[in-house]
């Protein structure tokens, strides 16, 4: 792959940069923006976002989704995953995503169960 063969489109072609350097700065602006949103939400913690969605606060879901968005752009544009062959990209990304999702599901499930034992069982922790 030639050095000038970077794919210069982000947001599925919505934004197209003229050069790789320009794309880097563009992605930096986007990442800073996302971080700024996270920080502002983290400081003010709006009341409306305290509702429970799928067992977690809506605010926490927003944080996690924004984090994954940031991770995507770091991997795809800073680490040039966008320019790699699709098969190689899947080898790296799908392996990680599958194993990590499985691990997180099984461990958090167990943590929630133990919490319910503490809360509803006959275990005294406050004395």
């Amino acid at each position, binding site marked *: 792959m030639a050095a000038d063969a970077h794919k210069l489109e982000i947001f599925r072609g919505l934004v197209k940069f003229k050069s790789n350097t320009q794309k*880097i700065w563009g992605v*930096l602006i986007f990442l800073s923006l996302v971080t700024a949103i996270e920080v502002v939400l983290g400081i003010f913690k709006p009341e409306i976002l305290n509702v429970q969605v799928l067992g977690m606060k809506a605010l926490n879901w927003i944080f996690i989704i924004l984090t994954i968005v940031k991770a995507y752009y770091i991997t795809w544009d800073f*680490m040039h995953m966008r320019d*790699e062959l699709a098969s*190689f990209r899947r080898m790296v990304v799908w392996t990680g995503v599958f*194993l990590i999702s499985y691990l997180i599901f099984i461990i958090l499930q167990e943590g929630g169960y133990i919490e319910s034992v503490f809360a509803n069982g006959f275990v005294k922790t406050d004395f």
Partner: protein
Amino acid sequence: MDTTVVKTSAENKRWGGGTEPLKTSYGKMMMWFFITSDALTFAGFLAAYGFSRFKFADSWPIADNVFTHVPFIHGNYPMIFVAFMTFILIMSSVTMVLAVDAGHHMKKAKVTIYMFLTIIGGLVFLSSQAYEWSTFIKGTYGAVATEGGNILHIMDADGNQVALKDFAIAQGSDRERHESRTGLWFTSESTLPSYTFEEVLDGFKANPNLVVRTTYTGEDGHKTTLSRSESLRELETKGKNVVEGANLRQNEYGAPLFANYFFFITGFHGFHVSIGIMLNIIIFFNVLIGTYERRGSYEMVEKVGLYWHFVDLVWVFVFTFFYLV
């Protein structure tokens, strides 16, 4: 991006070596596989952190009450400093990727400058983390621990936390720190807190506007604050000792487990950053003496760059799970 990589003569023989499966050089592919395995390691740590957090869902410390310091400024500013740290790391990621880009165009001077900036960014991040650790270890207000290991914070009427030294009544204790050279040689103890529990309790009784904030999180997402009479009963019946600062055994901000995970995960990440800085310095000097110019390829910058971006990637997750969620 293998234009500049030297090709061997066996180029057209699929099994004769010299071909690049998946159009990626060996070194870059192995760096990616290392990153995948390292990502699994970090995922394991963060999942363990999540496990403990789910297990102690109602008593886990709230990050906004813990990380509130900004260097040179007094007061309560949650999130600001860690947002700065995040920005520094993203910024050094950007200079790294600019160095890689300049390497593709064989511009030695530009690679040198960008590598230098990347190293500086890494050092700033590490010093920030050292500051974060030292304020966390030193502690701010001090707290009372109960028999059951819970932490009670002392608050004033306006809902601000009060430092123990502002109200505790010193009574002059004869109790000295036990050291193995002055007594039983096979036991020892850590530094004694500045005040005993009795001194704190007397000070609390003498100040009628003080109340206690418990370890438990209420419905509104804040720690529950007790009324004055409940506070007095809580301290008298459950209070046991004074905790100042945080270490692996006790933690004035809440569960000791929180401090353990904080030291372990941010420490492991900081270790990665240190390794990254060392690699960057090696690459920087190699660029400087023209190693890659002679080799005709700056691919080594790219490989170390992948590692450096990965460090940034991990921090994005640490930031979310320790400071935001």
